[in-house]
């Protein structure tokens, strides 16, 4: 009977059993454990099951209360005191207390648990000692009573509150860890029901949720790797949300399903990085600027992304409060590019060795770099394209092998630190995030200060300066800011469009139109 109702089309309510919201995932989540979550498939599910002390409002991106109802930050920015909500229960019915945060944080930092995201808690005092195996407990965490959690930081760290909105800082019930592995038990609006690997993950609304029970009783996350097939399933009423739109078909699909297509900007940029560690780009600002002027961003956005993106003019995408809209350093002007190329010492491209531009295998990326290659040719700059699969590509970028490389970055948190410090501060050169090898002492000073400053206005000012500086310096070629594109069953409302991407969509806010509440 369940099977029949699954395929009966989205319009009809099932005769028996709960209404199921069917959400497409492109891949099976590697795990449903907050301390290991690094991919969006897992995050989509984790954020429904687990919650932390604080959370990000999906739209405004402000830090809002979650399991902590309020918090205080000491004047020196070192001590964070969180006051927990009372009568909040895990999905097994046990009340959440401060001890659960000690357990969850220490679990994340215990070396043998191999958390990929233990850096989220690294700013807390004693975290490094735990991770290196020198301590068994987290010295920077105190629990004076059942409802108070005090975190002390090693040094002031401005993005800390946003950091602990990430998955790894969630409250995990110790009962999750059993002899037969990990069973997700959290406090979120949905509780874990079942997981058939590579098929689906099912969640059901948690009746005692502290925010009130969700109206959608059940969510099935269906693993459908091919987006074309996911689209067909959506048309057949077998899916309610497809978190992607088949490339090249946006206009067609929008015409066919105007109510179902949702497009919104999210915190992601895309760029072509220069290799600052060796010639010809090292210490040759004019050359980097020349190439920055030789990219027709408007046409890339229009022709390749069907208008569903924004040409980029700085590091920070729209939606970031630290973004400075007045930064507009480079347009598309081949004459200007030629002139700068001559000033750089390579008139008409003469004397310039053939440069390499690398990208990871993907049809869109390939079209993107081929387009760039063709306009560079017009100013006399010849580049050779090279594509690799992601693991090999990442390796090459970290070792500064390419002259130029294509990359994008999705913000972990809506804090400019996550773009500017992580990707461009010279302390981050190598695997930590700065693959270009960009190094500018003034930029480092600005981003270092912003990291520890406790004054929000001062931080914004510092990041605006830093972004302008890096852009004037032509750290990369800014290409575009991406949009998130989804198909959503218009029979549901209450959808909000999270600036971090679809994985943050609060399913618990949705309701079925016309259904009796």
């Amino acid at each position, binding site marked *: 009977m*369940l*099977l029949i109702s699954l*395929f009966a089309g989205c319009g009809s309510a099932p005769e028996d059993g709960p209404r199921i919201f069917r959400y497409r995932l492109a*891949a*099976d989540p*590697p*795990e449903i*454990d907050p301390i*290991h979550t*690094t*991919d969006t498939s897992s995050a989509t599910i984790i954020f429904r099951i687990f919650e932390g002390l604080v959370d990000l409002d999906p739209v405004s991106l402000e830090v809002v209360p979650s399991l902590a109802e309020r918090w205080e930050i000491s004047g020196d920015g070192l001590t964070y005191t969180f006051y927990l909500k009372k009568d909040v229960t895990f999905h097994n019915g046990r009340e959440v207390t401060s001890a659960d945060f000690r357990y969850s944080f220490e679990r994340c930092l215990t*070396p*043998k648990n*191999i*958390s*990929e*995201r*233990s*850096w989220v808690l*690294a700013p807390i005092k004693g975290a*490094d000692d735990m*991770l*290196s195996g020198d301590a068994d407990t987290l010295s920077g965490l105190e629990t004076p009573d059942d409802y108070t959690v005090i975190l002390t930081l090693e040094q002031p760290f401005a993005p800390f509150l946003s950091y602990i909105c990430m998955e790894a800082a969630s409250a995990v019930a110790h009962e999750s860890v059993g002899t037969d*592995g990990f069973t997700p038990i959290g406090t979120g609006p949905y509780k874990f029901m079942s997981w*058939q*690997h*590579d*098929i689906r993950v099912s969640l059901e609304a948690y009746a005692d949720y502290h925010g009130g029970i969700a109206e959608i009783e059940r969510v099935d996350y*269906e*693993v*459908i*790797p*091919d987006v*074309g*097939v996911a689209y*067909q*399933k959506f*048309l*057949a009423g*077998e899916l309610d949300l497809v978190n992607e739109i088949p490339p090249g078909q946006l206009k067609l699909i929008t015409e066919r399903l105007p109510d179902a297509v949702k497009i919104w900007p999210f915190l992601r940029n895309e760029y072509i990085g220069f290799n600052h560690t060796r010639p010809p780009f090292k210490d040759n600002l004019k050359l980097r600027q020349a190439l920055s002027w030789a990219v027709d961003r408007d046409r890339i956005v229009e022709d390749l992304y069907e208008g569903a993106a924004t040409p980029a003019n700085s590091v920070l995408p729209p939606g970031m409060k630290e973004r400075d809209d007045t930064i507009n350093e480079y347009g598309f002007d081949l004459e200007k590019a030629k002139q700068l190329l001559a000033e750089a010492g390579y008139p008409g491209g003469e004397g310039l060795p053939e440069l390499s531009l690398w990208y990871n295998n993907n049809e869109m990326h390939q079209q993107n770099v081929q387009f760039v290659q063709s306009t560079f040719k017009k100013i006399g700059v010849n580049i050779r394209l090279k594509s*690799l*699969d*992601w*693991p*090999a590509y*990442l*390796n*090459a970028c*970290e070792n500064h092998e390419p002259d130029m490389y294509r*990359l994008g*970055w999705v913000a*972990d948190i809506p804090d400019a630190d996550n773009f500017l410090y*992580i990707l461009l501060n010279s302390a981050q050169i*190598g*695997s*930590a*995030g700065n693959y270009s090898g960009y190094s500018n002492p003034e930029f480092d000073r600005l981003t270092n200060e912003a990291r520890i400053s406790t004054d929000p206005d001062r931080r914004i000012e510092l990041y605006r300066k830093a972004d302008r500086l890096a852009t004037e310096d032509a750290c990369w070629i800014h290409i575009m800011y991406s949009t998130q594109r989804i198909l959503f069953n218009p029979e549901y409302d209450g959808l909000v469009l999270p600036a971090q991407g679809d994985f943050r969509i609060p399913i618990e806010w949705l309701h079925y139109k016309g259904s009796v509440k």
Partner: protein
Amino acid sequence: MTEYILKRLLMVIPILLGVATIIFMLMFLVPGDPARLLMGQHGDEKVLENIRREMGLDKPIYIQYVKYIGKLAKGDLGTSYRQKRPVTQIIRERFPATAKLAVASMILSIIIGITAGIIAAVNRNKFWDLLVMVLSLSGISMPVFWLGMMLILIFASGLGWLPVGGYGRSGDLRHILLPALSLSAVFIGYIARMMRSSMLEVIGKDYIRTARAKGLSERAVIVNHALRNAFIPVITIIGINFASLLGGAVATETVFAWPGLGRATVDAIRVRDLPVVEGCVIFLAFIFVMVNLLVDISYAWIDPRIRLNGRQDI
């Protein structure tokens, strides 16, 4: 016979050891750091160090190899880097889906392929022969990915008879039909062509002429005398294809969202989840060896002149 089978079974050990060594070396040589890949784009150094240490990836390669082979000897395929679960568990979960699909498409291939091949051979150079030859060639040439999508568009999206991909609750008949059909197209083509040429060869033999001369009906000649002998080369093709299907069919599994081994293997390669890649390949090698053994045994059953003495005269 028993001695032969035992010998063949013993051969499995060096074969698997060889496969394990080759795949271990290959994965080591391919660029990409498995520990680093677990972390996404933000590769914090301290965290990375911990992952390498805890997973034993900081050890020299020969120590990793010895440890790996040592575990393998005990039947332990290791733990997935990414899923943090035993590889045997991952294979056990995916194999039923793969086996179902393999069996379903083999049944389709054998029934349709052999029938078509016989029809073509009996009607040599006539209309039916030509039709079978053209269709089988199309079956072989059509990319599985494309064919799968077409089947979905026609039978699922268009006519609404079947679901658009997916496994349903347990890979039932409604869900398996389209993936099995798209997967079997190639094999139907191969089997039909092989059956036809094998039949034609047999029909030309002296003993068939004798049978006809005895006054047997054409039907009796084909069914009792020609078929059995014509089967031998076809069985080889079926065996090899079946074995490779049991290792998973990536394209079909991807299009139809079928939770099989092929997808699991390719996904693991994409993220350099070495234990999973190694485990799946070793498992596939094992299946290959076993199916080949079964094929060889079935020769003896079909053609009593063949005696399995472990010689190369079969």
